[in-house]
């Protein structure tokens, strides 16, 4: 057992209101710069929809993630080791700006400088790349709230395998349904981005598992951009370096939650440490599709188990981190309650951001003038949800419905339980039967309810001790260290000559 700690995340989709506050918080801190205008380390997508970059989940097109090469090994789909040599000059699967959008601003100067005329001057959109006038065709959230639309929603790659009727159910106007999917880098355990970099510029931090790009080692070979199946590494067209979400590590190191977590209006985000067995990464990444979700979960170790604690200490994990892992909200959602699931685990990067799938309204039809609901129950049967189970399964279960149904059932049971407790219009026996069917006890339902609805900052973000300054002092003479700091980076990060 090789215990490592990982700062992990849960996004509770049932709570996301699609306000994009997270995206804006991140943008203001990290990507409001030349060359990074088009980057959204955090973006929020409407599902069903095509997302950002357009249809990123279509791996026929983007070739992201891992694939089995037939003799029991995993290969990077875009450029495996041997394929990178002839393809280093031109990466065949590199997305281009057209797949994202061309960032633009407005020609405000024209409002002041326009010659006198009979019309009001206007501020026309101009490209932020070359300053030319552009006809804006798409943006980072072009399909925002357009669930049900023929060009966007109908092209969602997750619709694969849905029956015609289920697709219809998602897209006809009176029965429309959609939900939001906020996305950041998943800080994966088997990151394709890291494995693909010819220069070894990407790395995972040993202590907390944050995946970063060494800006001084990146040489713009762009392999990581093509390799990440979630399209969460971005190429800075100005500096000639790739960039990605850094989980706000400078904030984490000072005990603050990442900006997108901190600012989240719906309070959907949870952050905490998970301990896992690093010896099993390869074995788990190779499992057949239907065993992936459970296999991935089985890598995560019980932070209360004395054997795990002993092994963790042997691997140099400090008591503070172990204690933090014991209080981790992520552990509760993912391992204990099993209601948070990894996105597209079939890409085999073993993401460490988990999603609680959202509830959706009951199916409805409109045979005549009035809308007819498939079920009159306030908390309808999960399989009568408007978002078909298969759709969730494609997103969160590698195509298999079992794990998703389990998560949704439990959420529904918690609602019945609370309804019985507080409102009283549901009888206790029915609520208990629902809990039983969902493999949930009353105590567990209470815990889920509390962490979902009544959670404070401290409940949501259990940040492990990772003060780097202190970590240095523990290992080094401060006087010795002081003389070394600050050397090396002479001159700002400027674009190559």
């Amino acid at each position, binding site marked *: 057992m090789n215990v490592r700690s990982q700062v992990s995340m849960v996004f509770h989709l049932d709570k996301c209101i699609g306000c994009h506050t997270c995206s804006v918080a991140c943008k203001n801190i990290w990507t409001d710069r030349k060359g990074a205008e088009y980057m959204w380390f955090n973006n929020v997508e409407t599902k069903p929809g095509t997302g950002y970059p357009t249809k990123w989940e279509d791996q026929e097109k983007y070739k992201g993630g891992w694939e089995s090469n037939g003799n029991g090994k995993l290969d990077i789909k875009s450029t495996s080791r041997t394929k990178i040599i002839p393809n280093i000059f031109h990466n065949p699967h590199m997305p281009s700006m057209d797949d994202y959008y061309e960032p633009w601003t407005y020609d405000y100067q024209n409002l002041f400088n326009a010659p006198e005329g009979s019309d009001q001057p206007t501020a026309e959109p101009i490209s932020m790349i070359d300053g030319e006038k552009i006809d804006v065709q798409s943006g980072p959230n072009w399909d925002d709230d357009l669930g049900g639309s023929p060009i966007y929603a109908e092209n969602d790659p997750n619709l694969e395998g849905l029956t015609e009727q289920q697709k219809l159910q998602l897209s006809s106007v009176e029965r429309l349904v959609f939900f939001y999917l906020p996305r950041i880098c998943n800080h994966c355990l088997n990151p394709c981005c890291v494995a693909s970099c010819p220069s070894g510029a990407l790395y995972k931090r040993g202590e907390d598992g944050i995946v970063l790009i060494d800006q001084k080692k990146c040489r*713009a070979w762009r392999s990581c951009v093509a390799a990440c199946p979630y399209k969460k590494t971005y190429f800075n067209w100005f500096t000639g370096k790739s960039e990605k979400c850094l989980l706000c590590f400078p904030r984490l190191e000072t005990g603050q939650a990442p900006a997108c977590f901190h600012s989240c209006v719906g309070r959907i985000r949870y952050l905490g440490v998970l301990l896992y067995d690093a010896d099993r990464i390869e074995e788990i990444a190779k499992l057949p599709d239907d065993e992936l979700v459970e296999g991935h979960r089985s890598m995560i170790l019980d932070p209360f188990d004395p054997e795990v604690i002993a092994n963790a200490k042997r691997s140099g994990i400090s008591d503070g981190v172990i204690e933090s892992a014991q209080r981790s909200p992520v552990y509760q959602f993912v391992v204990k309650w099993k209601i948070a699931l990894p996105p597209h685990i079939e890409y085999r990067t073993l993401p460490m951001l988990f999603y609680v799938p959202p509830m959706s309204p009951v199916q409805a039809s409109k045979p005549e003038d009035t809308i007819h609901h498939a079920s009159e129950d306030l908390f309808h049967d999960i399989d009568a949800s408007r978002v078909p189970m298969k759709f969730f399964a494609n997103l969160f279960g590698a195509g298999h419905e079992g794990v998703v149904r389990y998560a949704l059932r439990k959420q529904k049971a918690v609602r019945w339980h609370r309804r019985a407790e507080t409102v009283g219009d549901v009888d206790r026996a029915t609520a208990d039967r629902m809990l039983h069917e969902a493999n949930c006890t009353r105590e567990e339902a209470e815990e889920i309810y509390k962490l979902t609805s009544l959670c404070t900052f401290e409940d949501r973000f259990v940040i492990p001790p990772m003060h780097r300054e202190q970590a240095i002092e523990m290992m080094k003479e401060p006087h010795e260290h002081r003389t070394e700091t600050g050397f090396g980076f002479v001159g700002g990060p400027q674009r190559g000559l």
Partner: protein
Amino acid sequence: MSQHFLDQFLFVALPYVCLFTFFLMTVYRYRMQSFSYSSLSSQFLENKHHFWAVVPFHYGILVVTAGHMIAFLIPRTILAWNSHPLRLYVLEVSALAFGLLTLVGLIGVVVRRFSNTKIKNVTTPTDWILFVMLLLQTISGISVALFHPWGSAWFASNLSPYLWSIFKLNPDVSYVAAMPHLVKFHIVLAFLTIGFFPFTRLVHVLVIPNPYLWRKPQVVRWYGRRG
């Protein structure tokens, strides 16, 4: 007499200045400005014509450069190979073919940068100067191949000793003094390009990734605990 001084200047002083600049500045830039070492790819901004420009150019230039290096390093082997006329023809024709491939690619690179406003916007004056130098170098190289054939033979017998004399710090210009003007031009421009090298995007050639094929797929960096 003035011809003698010119030769001394072009084939002794200039090479040393350029080589010195090359070694000093690449190291200096790598240590002080390692952020600026990048291939500065433009594929993200323009992906339709990218392949047809960058790929032929690189395959061409890499083979041609490798050819020059081999003739410089192991001239006797080349001469031995060329002792058979058919083998000489094969070598000359393929060298010319890769030269033309370089030219086609390079023209593609320049046209692409010129015609697309987005990439033009990220092209610096240094880039333009470099492209002109590379174009002239490629064209003069191809012309040498056409007008002064069997370069693979006379490079190995005459130029290789000259280059060695430079590196052995005992310069001997007698080999080059007798060369035609076109060849002299090619040599001088080559040294100028080497001297200009550390100030351009060409530094990406020095940081081509090598340990990738051997290293473990996943890279983990520990802050203090392990290596």
